[in-house]
């Protein structure tokens, strides 16, 4: 009996402490700071979706899926118009590998004699180190259908 009561008290004490911590942590300035209310003008879904439908009409579904995948999977290192961790990607399809101006390539890519065709891009994305041993891009896209969609997107942003 005694021990049970002891445990019960201890439990209450713990719960109270946790509750106190939560209260202390949810300081109003912190709450307000991190609550980002949707900016009505900027995030109005109707504006977004109409803009999106224009793009969708102009490109294939594949490319639209590919764009999402590109954002999620390539977006940490690449963008269309800026050299970042990897080179910029606008007009990459059909281009000679390793020739985007202003980007510092690995020797592997500088030496690679390849053009970025559908087939070469597919092999590259499946395993860059196999396609161009010694490359600094290690990121692989395992699923063939994802590679296909990403390549369709890259095509849609190439002339």
């Amino acid at each position: 009996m005694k021990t049970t009561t002891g445990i019960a008290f201890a439990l209450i004490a713990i719960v109270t402490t946790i509750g106190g911590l939560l209260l202390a942590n949810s300081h109003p300035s912190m709450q307000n700071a991190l609550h980002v209310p949707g900016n009505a003008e900027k995030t109005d879904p109707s504006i977004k979706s109409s803009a999106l439908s224009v793009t969708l009409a102009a490109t294939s579904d594949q490319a639209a899926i590919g764009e999402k995948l590109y954002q999620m999977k390539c977006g940490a290192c690449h963008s269309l118009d800026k050299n970042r961790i990897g080179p910029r990607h606008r007009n990459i399809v059909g281009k000679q590998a390793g020739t985007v101006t202003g980007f510092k390539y690995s020797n592997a890519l500088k030496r690679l004699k390849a053009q970025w065709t559908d087939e070469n891009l597919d092999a590259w994305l499946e395993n860059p180190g196999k396609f161009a041993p010694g490359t600094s891009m290690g990121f692989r896209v395992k699923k063939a259908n994802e590679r296909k969609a990403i390549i369709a997107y890259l095509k849609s942003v190439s002339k």
Partner: protein
Amino acid sequence: MTTETTMPTRRNFIGGAGKTLSLAGLAMISGGCSYAAAPNSASATSQDVEILNAAIALEHEGIAAYQIAATSGLLQPAVVDIGVTFQGHHKGHRDALIKAVEQLGGTPVEEQSQDHYIDALDIASLKNQEDVLRLALKLERGAANAYLGLIPSLGNDFHQVAAQMAGDEAFHAAILGNALGEPIPKTPLMFG
């Protein structure tokens, strides 16, 4: 988008985050990582150096992004605190990666100028706190995916640390997504 009923919980989660995170960051950094010289071929080693260097470049960019954001004047002080904590994790990643490259006999890549990152990340287009948080979310989510996607290209010695880094980036993405009122993804395997 934001349902008011879920807000208090969200606030509590986030409110607590700032404090516990720095502990995790410290453990990550002070725990240190040591890599035994891999019994790999020279080409496998130089492949690892190249890939790890790309990861260092990614961390440099992330550190710069948080720095630019913190000094932009667009963020409320409490958000700056959280950003600085996240930046600390990225510095820990950078340091662990630099150590790994050096142990493999490679030369770690240097960071670029702040102007380079301002241009590369199109910082001029950010107008308010929400814009900044959206960029941070995009980078963190991308980084979690990037680390997971490069694991199969790396030597075994680096699989675990790459996964640990992906975990940290996913943690950051979760906090940022929550702050932006994004719904919790319904399907599993949300990264990779």
